[in-house]
C-alpha cells in the first residue's frame, strides 16, 4: 500500500528548523526538588485526586484516578511528600490555574514495584483497564486516553497507522525517539496491533528524517511497513497522514476509526512498551527545547517538571528572548507562566527570538485572493469562515464546516493580508461550544421545571383525592347512624377509655385544687361565716363555696 502514496490538497513548506535540536541525543534531567502534576492532562474528565497534603508518595504511585469513561490516571514522578493539592499554573493558552498535586522530592527517587503486563494472554478489556490505570494518553498533542483508542469496538479496525511524521517546524522529539529507541517503539506498536487485532501496520515518517526512517526500517518486524512520506506541513495531521498512506478520506465530522483506521503517535507506542513490558506508568516523555536557548535539544522529562527547570537544563534562554511557545510555531500557544509544568501534552518548548518570531504585522483587509482555500489541507474555504466568524454569524460559519478545521494555521501562514484566520476560527468554535452548552443547560432546566409543575399538580390531586375519600367515609358513617356505631368496637373502646380519662382528670382537679379557706385562723373563719350569712340574706340563695 505504501508504494502508491496519495497527495492531500493544500499544505505549506515552512522552514524546518529541525537541525537545531535534532543533533544531540536525548538527555536525562537531574532530579528536581519539586514537581507539580496537574490532574487534567488529557481530554475528558480530570483525574480524581487520591492524595492530600502531607501524604508520602513513591515514584509511580497513582496520585489521581481515572474518573468516568474519558479519563486516565496520573502518577507521582518521584518519591517524596505531597505539599499541596491546589490550583497551580498549567500550560494552557488562558494562563488560568488548574488543580494540581505539588510534590516535594525526598531525593531518594524510590519507586513502587512495577509488574509487567502479560499482554498476550490478558483479557482485552482487562488489558485496557490496566493501560488506563497506567495513565497512558496520546502524546501527539491531543492527549486522548489511549485505552479507549485500543478498543476495536463496534467499528472493525483493519489498519493501524503509527504517526512519526512530526511535521511541525522546530519539534524533533519523535525524531530522536525513533532514532534511539526504534526497537522499543516497535514493540509498543506490536502490542497496539495485538490489542486492535489488525493485520496492516503502517508507520509514516516524513522524509526529512532519514536517520529515523533508517532506524525504524531496520528494527521493523515482518508485517510492519515503514513508509517515507513527503515533507509537507501538516502531513502529520491524523487525517492527512491517513489519506497520504491509504487514500482513504475521513468523513466530515468523523474520526479515522469510522473508516476502520486507528492512528497512534510514536511516543504513545513507546510509552505503551514501557507500560506493558516494564509495568511502568506514564512518568516521563521526550520534550524538545529549542529556539533561542543556549543548548537546544531533547530531554527525557518527568511529567510535572516545571518548564522553568526544563529551560535551565537547556542552558537557559539567550539574551533577547521574547517569550516562549508551547508546542510548535504553527499550532502552539504562547506560554503565560514558566512555573507551569510539563504535562503529557507538552512536546516542545520554543524560546522566541525577534528574528524568527517577529511580531505579526497589522492585518489588512481581505482581498479575496483565495490563497487560504488553496492551502487548506481540510479542503475548506477559510475566507468564508473568516467573514462569518468575524461577523459573529456562527450558524453560517458552521455551515461552511468550521468544525472540520484542524487549526493547522496554513491559511494564516499564506494570507497576504496577514489576517489571523485561526484566531477567528478558535473564537467561533468556542462560542459555538458555549452556546451548545447553554442550550443543553436550558433544555435541562426546562425539563426540570416542567417536572416540578407536574409534581406539584400531582401532589395537589393526591391530597384532594385523600380528602374526598375521608369526607365520603365520614358521610357514610353519619348515614349509617347509631346502628353502624357499635360495628366498630375498637372506636367504642377508645371512646370509653377517653371518657374515663376525662372523668379521672376532672376528679383529680377537684381533689387537688387547693381551697384558700383551709387551715385559716378561727378569727378569719368566723368572718367568712358572717359574710356567707349576709350573702345568703342578700341573694336568697345558696352561698358560694368560699
Amino acid at each position, binding site marked *: 500500500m505504501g508504494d502508491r502514496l496519495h497527495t492531500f490538497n493544500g499544505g505549506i513548506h515552512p522552514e524546518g528548523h529541525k537541525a537545531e535540536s535534532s543533533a544531540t541525543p536525548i538527555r536525562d534531567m537531574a532530579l528536581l526538588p519539586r514537581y507539580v502534576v496537574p490532574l487534567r492532562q488529557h481530554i475528558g474528565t480530570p483525574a480524581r485526586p487520591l492524595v492530600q497534603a502531607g501524604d508520602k508518595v513513591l515514584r509511580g504511585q497513582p496520585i489521581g484516578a481515572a474518573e468516568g469513561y474519558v479519563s486516565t490516571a496520573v502518577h507521582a514522578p518521584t518519591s517524596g511528600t505531597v505539599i499541596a493539592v491546589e490550583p497551580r499554573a498549567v500550560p494552557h493558552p*488562558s494562563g488560568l490555574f488548574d488543580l494540581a498535586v505539588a510534590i516535594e522530592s525526598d531525593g531518594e527517587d524510590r519507586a513502587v514495584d512495577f509488574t509487567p503486563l502479560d499482554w498476550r494472554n490478558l483479557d482485552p478489556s482487562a488489558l485496557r483497564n490496566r493501560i488506563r490505570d497506567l495513565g497512558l494518553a496520546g502524546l501527539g498533542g491531543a492527549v486522548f486516553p489511549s485505552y479507549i483508542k485500543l478498543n476495536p469496538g463496534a467499528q472493525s479496525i483493519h489498519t493501524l497507522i503509527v504517526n512519526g511524521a512530526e511535521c511541525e517546524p522546530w519539534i524533533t522529539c519523535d525524531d530522536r525517539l525513533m532514532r534511539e529507541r526504534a526497537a522499543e517503539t516497535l514493540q509498543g506498536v506490536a502490542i497496539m496491533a495485538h490489542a486492535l487485532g489488525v493485520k496492516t501496520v503502517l508507520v509514516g515518517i516524513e522524509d526529512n528524517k532519514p536517520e529515523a526512517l533508517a532506524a525504524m526500517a531496520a528494527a521493523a518486524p515482518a508485517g510492519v511497513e515503514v513508509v517515507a512520506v513527503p515533507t509537507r506541513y501538516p502531513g502529520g495531521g491524523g487525517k492527512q497522514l491517513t489519506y497520504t498512506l491509504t487514500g482513504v478520506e475521513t468523513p466530515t465530522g468523523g474520526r479515522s476509526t469510522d473508516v476502520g483506521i486507528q492512528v497512534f503517535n510514536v511516543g504513545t507506542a513507546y510509552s505503551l512498551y514501557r507500560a506493558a513490558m516494564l509495568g511502568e506508568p506514564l512518568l516521563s516523555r521526550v520534550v524538545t527545547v529549542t529556539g533561542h536557548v543556549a543548548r537546544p535539544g531533547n530531554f527525557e522529562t518527568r511529567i510535572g517538571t516545571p518548564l522553568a527547570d526544563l529551560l535551565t537544563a537547556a542552558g537557559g534562554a539567550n539574551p533577547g528572548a521574547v517569550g516562549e511557545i508551547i508546542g510548535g510555531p504553527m499550532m502552539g500557544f504562547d506560554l503565560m507562566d514558566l512555573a507551569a509544568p510539563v504535562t503529557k501534552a507538552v512536546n516542545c518548548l520554543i524560546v522566541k527570538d525577534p528574528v524568527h518570531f517577529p511580531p505579526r504585522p497589522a492585518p489588512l483587509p481581505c482581498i479575496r485572493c483565495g490563497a487560504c482555500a488553496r492551502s487548506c489541507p481540510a479542503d475548506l474555504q477559510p475566507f468564508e469562515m473568516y467573514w462569518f466568524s468575524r461577523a459573529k454569524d456562527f450558524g453560517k460559519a458552521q455551515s461552511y464546516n468550521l468544525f472540520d478545521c484542524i487549526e493547522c494555521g496554513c491559511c494564516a501562514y499564506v494570507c497576504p493580508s496577514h489576517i489571523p484566520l485561526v*484566531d477567528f476560527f478558535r*473564537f467561533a*468554535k468556542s462560542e459555538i461550544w458555549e452556546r451548545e452548552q447553554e442550550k443543553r*443547560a*436550558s433544555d435541562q432546566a426546562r425539563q*426540570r*421545571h416542567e417536572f416540578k409543575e407536574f409534581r406539584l399538580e400531582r401532589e395537589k390531586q393526591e391530597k384532594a383525592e385523600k380528602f374526598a375519600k375521608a369526607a365520603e367515609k365520614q358521610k357514610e358513617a353519619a348515614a349509617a347512624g347509631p346502628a353502624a356505631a357499635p360495628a366498630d368496637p375498637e372506636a367504642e373502646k377508645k371512646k370509653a377509655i377517653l371518657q374515663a380519662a376525662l372523668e379521672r382528670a376532672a376528679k383529680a382537679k377537684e381533689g387537688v385544687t387547693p381551697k384558700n379557706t383551709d387551715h385559716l385562723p378561727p378569727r378569719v373563719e368566723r368572718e367568712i361565716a358572717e359574710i356567707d350569712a349576709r350573702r345568703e340574706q342578700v341573694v336568697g340563695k345558696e352561698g358560694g363555696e368560699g
Partner: protein
Amino acid sequence: MLSAILVMAAIGLVLGGILGWASVSYRVEEDPLVEKIDAVLPQTQCGQCGYPGCKPYAEAIAKGEAEINKCPPGGLEGIKRMAELLGVEPPAAEGMEPKPKSIAVIDENTCIGCTLCIQSCPVDAIIGAAKQMHTIIADQCTGCELCLPPCPVDCIAMVVVKEDVTTWKWRYPVHMMKRAA
C-alpha cells in the same frame, strides 16, 4: 360543458376530502410558535418578565400580549434572536446587559432547614429536608435568585461563576487594521 363541470366538481370534492382528512389527522396539538419562542428563552424560570416562568411568557409573546424585551437573563442577544424569529424590529432595551452568570450558594452554617427555598426553586435544584441543612446542586442552578427572598435567615448568596480551564473561551481577535494608504 356538463362533463367539464362534473369533472371539476369531482376534483374539488376529492381534494376537499383530502384536505379535510389531513386537517384532522395531521392536527398540530400545540402552537408550534410557543415552542419556538420557548426554545429561545434562557429557561431560568426567574419570573422577572412578570410571568410565572418561561413558558407562560412565551405563550404571552405568541399571543402578542407581551413585548419581547422583558427577559433580562436573555439579554440583548436574546432580544435579537427573538426579533429574528418573529420577524420584528428589536425594540429598545435599556439595562438589558445580562449579569455575569452566577449561582446560589447556601451558607450551611447559618441554614436552619426551613425548606422555604426548596419550595421556591423552580427547577428543584436544592436538596434538603425539614430541620436538615440544605444545599444547592450547582450544575442545576439557573441563577434565578427566587430562593433569596424566602430565606428567613438570609443565608443564600449569589456567587459569580469563575472562569476555569474548561469554560475559558478564545477571545474575539482584536487587531488594529492597518489603514490602506
